[in-house]
């Protein structure tokens, strides 16, 4: 390869620091913290780095130290380098992640100071790490790529480029597997090529050749991967178009897109409309450049920037070649640095001013043109749905604010913009016109400027430009009158005259007399429903009304006569007509593929936001009630599968297991993930299409139900835990704002925020999603809130969640036959009253619920327990009394949860066994086969639940239990029953019930009676006397089924055993307390007598019958 390490002359400058061989340090440079740490670790461990290696287990802190020592050793020690790498390979326990992370930090913070030898060693080490398939080595490569500076052909820069190219070329298979590195490298080398093309140096000549081969290979073989880069790929390709090898690429891009063999790629416009992820644009600035630019834009006041600008130029832009960096800087400022509101409102220097300065730094015309293109690039292909206002804002503000002082700049920018609109890509002029008009629309709609009047009527601006402005954007160039009116329709009008590719609906072409007429026509035009909607949004006086948007959408779907050439035009007019197109091929896999795989690049958070956007675009864009469409299961299944495939390819998990659980900490996947986005959308909208998707995902083996259940329970947990705090009274959104203000306060409030953001739309996401999808969700939510008999919004939200879950379960049940009908709020009664579903259906749903619970069991027992304690509350119709759920509960129970649950049961916050008695009886009967501890837990819970039960129910229960319980066999159940009865208050009914127990329960019954007697002897005596005097034990209505077997007083019966107990007791009591006891004994004996005679005469039966 080009510049091999051995060709470099080693001039090792003397380091004047503390003897470190790693970083270059001047006489007055402060010590670098990282270097000091690495050196210290090396010095302390050096002796142990040589064989024999100590492979015994180390503490995490030791491992960190070892990694630090090895980094230092490998980078600085020529002789022992190999040995240390061996040591590293032998001792790493984390797939080199810890080691590589140190290297990444070193590259990011101190690469410029690295001495020559460590630089060589570092690059050698990267190759080794790739060979080891080390973790994070892709990030390390990207950090190193970032260290190759654009517009710099100095020795070390060219050397690094050559080394990296060498590494990538010799590890092609690895590179192909790491598409972020692949595309990052392509982006870097495409950017470097023009620099290297200017140079005559032989080193560079060779490097240039290899760079060309490398880039062409990627473009030809891996174009599919390159699509994620988006429009800036075209911008860079433009700069290399003059290189012979790229000519054919350009030819194919423009006229033979299929040559790239990329699925779904059929037109260069598909690249144009993809906003380039920030990481590519940021990667073209070194970390220092990024820090300095961000510092200027966040700390330096307008007017105080002069010195910083001078320093910046001296540091980074002081050679003629470095001028090309201006384009990279402008792209970065427009796209990757978006200041928050407090900065925008402060006197910090705005972005447009910095860009103005950068433009002034350009000396050559070529660079200046490229810089202007960089500034306007997002304008040309702006799409309301996917592009960001902040990307296009600086250009307009720069033009407007440069008048009158720098009117030349405004002049030149406007001229350039018009030039681009007509000549950037003449074949796709319509797309560009659309983009620019959409940009102006949104800039004015959002109030970045009030109108274009300051430009169109400026006395400083050339008349020809003003005329052009008025021609292109007439509505924004008139003072006050009609301002911001019918903007988009105007665009259409202008467009349709330009457009040869679009067969616009005839009514648009035929009536273009006046704008008003045009608007009227559109208003009644069915086929232009979408435009109609746009018009309404822009009409004077009425606030942008999203509901109208939804309303008019349906009419749009019938307008199938908008015939569009595939894809290119779909993107072309996406803003206006794409809804109609979307209707046609809404669930076409290709569409999903195009949009999603591109969107999902970028950081995790970006991907989540992008996914949310995607959802809103693809699912909510058309209303859920359009029954007419044939959305069969297969479609959903394919769509769902495509989405998850794309997610998988992007390393984004979906419905992943939640192995951890902490009541105080939400896992990231619970709150900020594709999964949570889907659930949030589904639980707040009940969108039938989303439900279908969820069912499809379930069918494909994702743990959708379990995750949805976890999601719902987390919300419920939030409300139950924070119900009492003062925050809870207000609306969720207010709370979340409040919480944000107090973010740093305490763990508690942080927890609130994290929980809150789960159930409100995340503020950031919310911003991204200010489209109708969100509106629709809100409307639905409000509707449900009105119907649901719940006190507060939180309750409504939770109810919605569980309702949504139940709806999902129902869907599983009717798999294949679920209708696509919209969700009706009357289902909401399900959850609040628990009687909404028939018992048969409940059984089916229970089956699915149990499956989900078991999945959760596999993930984490604490999580399952928290879920279990909640679902009895929120899904009572499915859980209460259900044997399997209860079994799951008691088999996983731990003492702390048990205590909580016991309290809840005692306070009647939930029911575990519930009614009816028959079911409970079966439950107890079946529980006899459970483990001893499970039975104990069950009975303790039952006791807690039943302690306030009416005597009648208890009596029934005892009677029925006595039929199948065997005291000597079923010790857990009997002792459970005993503790239940002991807690009861003695009443006539209860005493009779106990006395009626069969003989094998004699000791049991005596124990119960003994307890009652000891806690309230007077009352006990009263009851007994009552029974005896009124002969209540003979009353059939009290005996019920026992009427055939009245109370038995014979030996071994409960009554006899109790008497025996009383006798025993009397022997041990002193005289005074004997009095009451004697009385009780006398009454009991009397009762015994009566019973004996009853049995003898068999009297009470007939008399009892007669009474009935």
């Amino acid at each position, binding site marked *: 390869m080009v510049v091999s390490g051995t060709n470099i002359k080693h001039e090792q400058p003397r380091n004047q620091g503390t003897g470190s061989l790693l970083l270059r340090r001047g006489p*007055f*440079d402060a010590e670098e913290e990282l270097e000091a740490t690495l050196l210290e670790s090396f010095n302390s461990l050096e002796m142990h780095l040589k064989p024999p290696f100590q492979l015994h287990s180390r503490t995490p802190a030791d491992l960190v130290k070892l990694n630090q020592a090895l980094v230092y050793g490998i980078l600085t020690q020529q002789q022992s380098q190999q040995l240390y790498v061996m040591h590293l390979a032998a001792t790493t326990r984390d797939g080199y992640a810890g080691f590589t992370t140190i290297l990444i930090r070193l590259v990011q913070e101190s690469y410029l100071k690295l001495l020559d030898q460590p630089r060589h060693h570092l690059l050698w080490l990267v190759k080794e790490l790739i060979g080891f398939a080390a973790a994070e080595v892709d990030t390390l490569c990207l950090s190193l790529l970032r260290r190759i500076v654009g517009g710099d052909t100095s020795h070390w820069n060219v050397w690094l480029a050559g080394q990296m190219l060498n590494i990538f070329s010799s590890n092609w298979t690895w590179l192909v597997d790491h598409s972020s590195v692949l595309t990052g490298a392509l982006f870097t080398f495409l950017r470097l090529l023009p620099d290297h093309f200017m140079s005559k140096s032989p080193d560079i000549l060779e490097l240039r050749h290899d760079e060309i081969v490398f880039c062409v290979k990627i473009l030809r073989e891996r174009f599919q991967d390159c699509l994620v880069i988006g429009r800036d790929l075209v911008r860079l390709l433009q700069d290399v178009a003059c290189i012979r090898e790229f000519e054919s690429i350009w030819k194919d891009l423009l006229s033979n897109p299929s040559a790239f063999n990329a699925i779904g790629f059929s037109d260069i416009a598909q690249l144009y409309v993809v906003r380039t992820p920030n990481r590519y644009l940021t990667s073209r600035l070194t970390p220092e450049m990024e820090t300095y630019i961000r510092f200027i834009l966040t700390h330096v006041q307008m007017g105080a920037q002069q010195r*910083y600008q001078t*320093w910046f130029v*001296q540091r980074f832009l002081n050679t003629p070649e470095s001028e090309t960096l201006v384009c990279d800087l402008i792209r970065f400022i427009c796209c990757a640095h978006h200041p928050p509101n407090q900065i925008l409102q402060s006197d910090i220097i705005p972005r447009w001013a910095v860009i103005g300065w950068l433009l002034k730094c350009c000396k050559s015309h070529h660079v200046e043109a490229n810089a202007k293109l960089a500034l306007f690039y997002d304008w040309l292909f702006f799409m309301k749905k996917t592009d960001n206002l902040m990307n296009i804002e600086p250009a307009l503000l720069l033009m407007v604010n440069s008048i009158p002082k720098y009117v030349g700049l405004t002049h030149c920018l406007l001229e350039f913009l018009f030039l681009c609109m007509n000549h950037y890509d003449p074949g796709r002029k319509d797309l560009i016109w659309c983009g620019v008009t959409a940009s102006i629309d949104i800039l004015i709609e959002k109030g970045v400027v009030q109108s274009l009047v300051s430009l169109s009527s400026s006395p400083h601006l050339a008349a020809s430009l003003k005329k052009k402005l008025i021609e292109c954007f007439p509505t924004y160039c008139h003072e006050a009158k009609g301002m911001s009116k019918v903007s988009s329709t105007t665009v259409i009008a202008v467009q349709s005259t330009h457009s040869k590719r679009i067969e616009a609906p005839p009514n648009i072409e035929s009536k273009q007399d006046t704008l008003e007429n045009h608007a009227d026509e559109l208003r009644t035009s069915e086929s232009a429903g979408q435009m109609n909607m746009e018009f309404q949004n822009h009409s004077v006086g009425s606030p942008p009304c999203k509901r109208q948007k939804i309303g008019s959408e349906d009419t749009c779907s019938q307008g199938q006569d908008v015939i569009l050439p595939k894809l290119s035009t779909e993107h072309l007019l996406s803003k206006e007509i794409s809804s109609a197109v979307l209707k046609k091929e809404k669930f076409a896999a290709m569409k999903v593929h195009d949009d999603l795989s591109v969107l999902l690049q970028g950081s995790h958070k970006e991907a989540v936001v992008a996914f949310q956007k995607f959802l809103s675009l693809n699912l909510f864009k058309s209303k859920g009630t359009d029954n007419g469409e044939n959305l069969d299961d297969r479609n959903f299944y394919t769509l769902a599968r495509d989405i998850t495939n794309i997610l998988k390819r992007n390393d984004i998990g979906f419905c992943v297991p939640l192995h951890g659980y902490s009541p105080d900490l939400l896992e990231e996947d619970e709150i900020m993930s594709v999964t949570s986005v889907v659930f949030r959308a589904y639980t707040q909208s009940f969108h039938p299409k989303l439900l279908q998707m969820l069912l499809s995902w379930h069918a494909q083996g994702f743990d959708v139900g379990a995750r949805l259940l976890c999601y719902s329970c987390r919300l419920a947990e939030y409300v139950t835990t924070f119900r009492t705090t003062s925050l809870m009274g207000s609306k969720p959104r207010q709370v979340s704002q409040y919480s944000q203000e107090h973010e740093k306060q305490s763990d508690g409030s942080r927890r609130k925020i994290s929980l809150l953001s789960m159930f409100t739309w995340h503020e950031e996401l919310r911003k991204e999603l200010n489209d109708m999808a969100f509106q629709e969700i809100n409307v639905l939510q409000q509707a449900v809130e009105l119907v649901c008999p719940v006190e507060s919004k939180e309750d409504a939200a939770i109810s919605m969640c569980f309702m949504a879950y139940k709806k999902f379960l129902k869907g599983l049940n009717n798999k294949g036959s679920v209708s696509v009908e919209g969700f009706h709020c009357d289902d909401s009664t399900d959850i609040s009253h628990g009687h909404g579903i028939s018992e048969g259906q409940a059984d089916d749903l229970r089956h699915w619920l149990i499956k989900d619970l078991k999945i959760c069991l596999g993930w984490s027992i604490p999580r399952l327990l928290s879920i279990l304690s909640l679902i009895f509350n929120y899904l009572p119709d499915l859980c209460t009394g259900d044997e399997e759920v209860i079994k799951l509960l008691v088999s996983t129970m731990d003492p702390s949860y048990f205590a909580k649950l016991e309290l809840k049961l005692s306070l009647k916050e939930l029911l575990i066994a519930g009614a009816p008695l028959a079911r409970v009886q079966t439950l107890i009967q079946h529980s006899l086969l459970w483990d001893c501890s499970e039975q104990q837990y069950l009975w303790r819970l039952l006791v807690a639940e039943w302690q306030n039960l009416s005597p009648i129910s208890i009596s029934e229960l005892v009677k029925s239990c006595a039929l199948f319980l065997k005291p000597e066999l079923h010790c857990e159940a009997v002792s459970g029953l005993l503790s239940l009865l002991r807690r009861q208050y003695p009443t006539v009914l209860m005493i009779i019930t106990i006395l009626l127990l069969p003989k094998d329960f004699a000791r049991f019954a005596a124990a119960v009676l003994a307890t009652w007697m000891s806690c309230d002897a007077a009352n006990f005596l009263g009851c007994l006397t009552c029974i005896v005097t009124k002969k209540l034990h003979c009353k059939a209505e009290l005996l019920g089924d026992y009427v055939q077997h009245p109370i038995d007083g014979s030996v071994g019966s409960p009554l006899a055993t109790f008497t025996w107990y009383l006798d025993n007791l009397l022997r041990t009591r002193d005289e005074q307390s004997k009095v009451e006891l004697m009385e009780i004994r006398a009454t009991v004996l009397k009762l015994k007598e009566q019973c004996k005679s009853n049995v003898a005469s068999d009297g009470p039966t007939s008399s009892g019958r007669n009474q009935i």
Partner: protein
Amino acid sequence: MIKDLRPTAFNNIHTVFIILEKGPTVRGENGSLLSLCLVADQSASVHLQLWGSECDFFQPGDIVRISRGIFSSYSGNMILRAGRKGKLEKIGEFTMVFSEFPNMSKVQWAQEPSNPAVWIPIGLHNPHSSITTQNNIQKVL
């Protein structure tokens, strides 16, 4: 903070600032290299004298930590320097906000009547009373 600098006979100044401008390097009376800089932090600016190899090393935009520095009269001007006991260290670049006014080397100093050892600045409040820093440096040199 530079604004809190008071003339002193001791090496007791520890602070951090950014170098805004560097004057030409000249030979002092005893043959050593000298260079005068304008340095500032967010509270104020002051003239810093570099000595010997410091003159070559430090550049505008450098963020510098001075320890055991001294702020005293030197050839009739109040300047900050490390002196023999003190130390200058470059700890960063660029990312520091600063205020050029007041320039502590340009304010007038008066002894506090009750305690002549304490010097108090006069006219700190009026930034426009001092002429531009570039001129200041030239005048000093």
